[in-house]
């Protein structure tokens, strides 16, 4: 183990470094697969180590990753038999060791010379991604484990070095591999010039901090972490994964103290500077203004600016920063991130004389770092705040990424969300004066998400039906559909309509379809499909059974199997209603209707109704989803209405042939 020996401070040749060799191979052995019936592999050990050192100026960071994994089933080999390592510009891969430990104990070793090296693999560009597409420089390394098989233990350790000090870190035992972790270790070591803070979340394990030869060393060990569950309605990972937040508050370079993440001002300084001061490139050639004619007050100007952003750009997800793309290009492409939308909105408001500020929010609600723990990457969504001013009676929070939100409305993701309001001015010495203020985004709820499906049938005595399926979407469901289908061709709509009919029954025939139309501002979409089902109703003796199977089969992600592990989190309410209607055909009368049902849990309300008015029959089922957070143990009770909702499609209306005169 290295130490901060005083002598080393004078001799650069013995600069502190992370041990890159592997230990005793005999220490690792794959456990019996029978002990892990649902896992294809087990991570025996995963470690991440960081070493900040300043033997010579400037500071360097060594980062080491070490993983030992036992292969229990062949499926794991597709993920584990190769290791990919990305080395970004300014970073260097300084050591690599790997070995395959066979079940019989034989070891095949590999090293730096066995790596396949290429430049970074990057897609030639995604036209659908308006986010910045600047070239990434770097190298890409791949190691392929020889002789890997079920029962093998695969071990690798890689060490990188880069200039500077890691600013902040979110780290935990989970990776993108769906395997349990028996032991996870994080170690950070720094010199005396580094001031830092770290916190652990969702774990009882301790964080050990000790002096280390004049510097400090921090160790967190976590044991027996099960494989990550893939569960619908899961809360944001910050609230359940064990993880550590680390930030470098400041470090010393010579006589200078560099502030890194001491305060939110530090963390958000570059964002604020870019948004308010260093945006000449983004504004190059931009001369658009909103039409202010007829606007009597600030609210009107805000409405005009919101409409401009909504009508001229489509939200494309991601990106709280305005990025390097010019606004003229954003408008030309017609697609924008939340950062680009907010930047455009702010610019339009500013040019129209409306005072506005940027406010940063987090898309994932309930992140477990609060105002007292400044961490890079916490805020990933940009709002615009319009303080009360002449013509604006109430302060406004504008989420331009919510395209069906009117002035004063916010979507569930940002409504009542804690935000950081930024402001920045250029000082006389050209440096930025930054202020960061904590606040809460307030607003009315946007129009509720609804999914209304009406199925109007004409029932023939032989069981055939002709029908029209009309689907109306509202709120964020409508926005989702509009975005999904905005580039659909007529042929794509036709294909989708055929799929709707095929979902009723494979012999169904599409008669005609009305492709979806959406009102973007109102958050509404509607489409219709006309169809013929040759065998829908079932003639039995003198009865005709008309099933409700034209209703959808899906269970809305409430169909999970096995034991629930995570809390159940519903962020936004939503209502689904399906109604089947038909006239009782000539010569028949209603013999029976589905029994009315209602079932309610804390998260869901299900209802089935059936009625006859004159000769018109109507069967309706509905499912309403409530926002909230519930314990995993409540899952079975919570989802019971969803299961009843699914079972309702097996209900039927029974018609009886009228006999005699």
């Amino acid at each position: 183990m290295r130490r901060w020996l005083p002598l080393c401070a004078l001799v650069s040749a013995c600069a502190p470094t992370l041990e890159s060799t592997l230990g005793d191979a005999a220490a690792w052995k794959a456990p019996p697969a029978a002990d892990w019936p649902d896992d294809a592999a087990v991570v025996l050990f995963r470690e991440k180590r960081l070493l900040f050192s300043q033997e010579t100026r400037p500071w360097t960071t060594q980062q080491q990753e070490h993983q030992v994994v036992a292969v229990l089933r062949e499926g794991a080999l597709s993920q584990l038999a190769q290791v990919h390592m990305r080395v970004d510009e300014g970073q260097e891969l300084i050591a690599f060791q790997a070995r395959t430990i066979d079940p019989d104990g034989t070891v095949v070793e590999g090293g730096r010379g066995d790596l396949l090296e290429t430049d970074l693999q990057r897609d030639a560009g995604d036209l659908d991604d308006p986010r910045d597409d600047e070239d990434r420089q770097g190298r890409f390394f791949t190691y392929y484990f020889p002789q890997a098989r079920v029962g093998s233990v695969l071990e690798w350790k890689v060490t990188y070095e880069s200039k500077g000090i890691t600013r902040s870190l979110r780290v935990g035992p989970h990776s993108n591999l769906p395997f349990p972790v028996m032991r996870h270790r994080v170690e950070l070591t720094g010199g005396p010039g580094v001031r830092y803070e770290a916190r652990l979340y969702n774990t009882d394990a301790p964080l050990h901090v000790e002096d280390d030869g004049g510097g400090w060393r921090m160790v967190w060990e976590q044991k027996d972490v099960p494989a990550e569950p893939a569960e619908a309605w899961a809360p944001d990972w910050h609230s359940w994964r064990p993880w550590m937040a680390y930030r470098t508050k400041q470090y010393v370079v010579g006589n200078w103290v560099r502030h890194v993440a001491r305060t939110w001002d530090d963390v958000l300084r570059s964002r604020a500077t870019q948004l308010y001061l260093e945006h000449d490139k983004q504004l190059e050639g931009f001369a658009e203004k909103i039409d202010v004619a007829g606007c009597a007050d600030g609210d009107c100007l805000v409405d005009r600016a919101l409409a401009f952003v909504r009508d001229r750009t489509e939200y494309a997800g991601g990106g709280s920063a305005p990025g390097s793309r010019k606004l003229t290009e954003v408008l030309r492409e017609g697609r924008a991130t939340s950062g680009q939308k907010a930047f455009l909105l702010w610019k339009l408001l500013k040019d129209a004389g409306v005072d506005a500020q940027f406010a940063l929010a987090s898309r994932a609600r309930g992140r477990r770092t609060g105002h007292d723990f400044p961490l890079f990457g916490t805020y990933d969504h940009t709002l615009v705040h319009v303080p009360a001013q002449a013509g604006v009676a109430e302060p406004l929070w504008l989420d331009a990424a919510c395209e069906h939100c009117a002035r004063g409305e916010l979507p569930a993701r940002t409504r009542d969300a804690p935000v950081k309001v930024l402001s920045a001015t250029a000082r006389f010495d050209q440096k930025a004066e930054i202020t960061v203020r904590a606040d809460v985004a307030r607003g009315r709820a946007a129009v509720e998400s609804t999914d209304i499906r009406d199925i109007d049938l004409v029932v023939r005595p032989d069981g055939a039906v002709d029908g029209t399926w009309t689907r109306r979407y509202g709120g964020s469901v409508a926005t989702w559909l509009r975005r999904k289908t905005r580039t659909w061709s007529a042929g794509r709509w036709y294909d989708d309509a055929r799929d709707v009919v095929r979902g009723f029954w494979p012999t169904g025939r599409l008669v005609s379809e009305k492709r979806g139309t959406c009102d973007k501002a109102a958050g509404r979409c509607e489409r219709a499909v006309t169809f013929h089902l040759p065998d829908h109703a079932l003639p039995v003796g003198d009865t005709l059974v008309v099933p409700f199977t034209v209703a959808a089969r899906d269970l809305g992600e409430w169909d999970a199997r096995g034991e629930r592990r995570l809390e159940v989190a519903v962020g936004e309410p939503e209502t689904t209603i399906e109604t089947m209607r038909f006239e009782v055909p000539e010569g028949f009368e209603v013999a029976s209707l589905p029994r009315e049902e209602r079932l309610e849990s804390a998260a869901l309300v299900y209802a089935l109704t059936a009625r006859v008015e004159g000769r018109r029959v109507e069967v309706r089922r509905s499912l309403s989803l409530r926002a909230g957070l519930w314990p995993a143990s409540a899952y079975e009770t919570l989802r019971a209405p969803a299961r009843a909702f699914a079972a309702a499609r097996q209900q039927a209306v029974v018609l009886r042939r009228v006999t005699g005169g």
Partner: protein
Amino acid sequence: MRSRLAALLCVATIAGCGGGAQVQWAPLKLEELPGVDAHPGKGWVALRNERRIAFDLDPSTGEPYAEVETRFDVRVLTEAGRKAARVAEKHHPDLYPVTAFGVRLVAPGAKAGDPPTVRTWDREHAADVPQVNGSIYSEARVLGVTPSPLPPGSVVERRVTRRFADLRVFSLVHGFEVGGPVREARLVVDAPKGWRVDHVALRGGEHAEFAPVVRDEGGRTIYTWERRDLPGTPPEDFEPADPLGETVWVRLGAWRGADGRVVENLADHRATSAYRHALERHAYAPDDAIRARVAELLAGAPDDPRDRARRLYDWVRSQVRYCGIYFGMGGWVPHPAPQIHAARYGDCKDKATLLHSMLAVAGIPSRLGSLYSHNGVPTRAALPTVAGNHNHVILAVDLPDGTVFADPTDRSVPFGRLPFRDQGAELLPTSDPGSDLVRTPMAPAEVNLARFEADLTLAADGTATGTFVARFLGTQADRARSSLVDLAERGRREDLAARFGLVAGELASLDLVEHLEPPDADTPLVARGRLAARDALGVAGDGRTLRLSDLVTHFAPVLRETAQRVQPVVLGSPRRYVHRLRITPPAGLAAVHLPELVRIDEPYGRFEMSWTRDGEALVVERVLELSRTVVPAAEFGTLKAFADHVNRAERRAVVLAAGGAP
């Protein structure tokens, strides 16, 4: 190995190093070009899809080469068509480097009257990234440009020239159809007069008539193939995975060398076989470790060549993982067998080479062979060249009682049978002095069986619980095995529930999976356990309805109606499904009505479904046999009628009522 599509793209597109010549751009007037009105419902139109191939002699080497220029101009008609404007051109710095590269975007102005935006990209300004297509490492790269801005009405033109130096390895191909509509498609081949240019056209995977217009000009002969106003191929159900549109394959058949003598290219497929054999034979030689491995695997084995070959095959199949690493000619030439044995990974030709080497140690002769591993449509070889025709390598094992084709790449196919993708394919074994093309056999439906049996008890709330047993043979066993061998317990239950066709519910337990490793071609994979279904009963007043389709999904193809089918219908491996369910109704309910027996027997397959009583229980048996792999587009209507007939029969229900009726 690379797929035929990738191979086609590789020669169809282009790229390479060296910067090369400047591309000259002709004036372009957007207002004169066809727009969305001319192509309603389409996202883009290819204004030009052209390839120009010029053969010449390299004075520095005395060898012929080909300069292949791609000219592809696309107009974006709607936002949906933007992706067609993305440029991604494959190249290889040694085998087919790019000698010229240029992309031009002409986009309409933001407002009417604004001048168009014109941008160009040359080699320096294109992304040049590694191309990894199913491999871990390859020297092939992709030159990419994402033109932007790209509003509807934009035109993106690309000019890419690549140089092919080894004309024994490569044939050059042009695909006239590119998915969307094409205004002009053209292939122009230009060679010195007196040189022979061989060519063949393929359509739908078969040889087709398509003659060029030939003219002599300035000491050169120019061949031109041309099509205009191609409508494009709409996406269709069960469409071929690989494009089957019209292609013309070209190679240099004979040329005059620097000394004036006529030099012939590979004469035929037999000559190609011998040429390939010469390229790869260095890799066959075993080392001591291979010899020791063979001795270990055959220790105590009977002196039966088939049994010994099977043991070696099983080891390579199961113990050598698939992994492609390509340096230089690595796309066609295998790594040495000892390297593969030591690493225990390799691609198809590596695995075949190792097995060939091990068989040779055991005294069993075999030949490597290349074929086109298909996605349901076996495709004919075009011209005799090393690259382009085939995308996969297997082994022909010459046993005393006949040749056995063996594909050790497939993890779960037993010795004695080929995976479906290799069946019915043209195989070119490599040998000295050469072999002819042979066709591998196609297995009939009855040997590709999935049989599901269950004994279930229905509850009044529609849940059905009980035991099941599933048996798989042939290609159905191959697929199930290759999936199950990868999975842990829960994954296996989910996989088998899907194979069973369970509509709603799950396999509650999986007690036994037998013969996951195939001992031979005739032993079925067997799985047993318990299942729990739900919502299996329809509620009709006081009565109940029971359909097989509420428990088990449809297995007949669901074909959506279409005005005019364009492509053949690809149904996959011939196969048979049998479901036999014994169902005990809920207490107090009995069947008052059973659907009649349905039997359908047509050229496309066979269907039989019966409901019978077994004491208080009901027995439903459904047999579906699909006997065709590919159905021509012209037969779509009759095929759909067959599928609809089957699916309609499944609609009928048992009616259950209190007390029931005899």
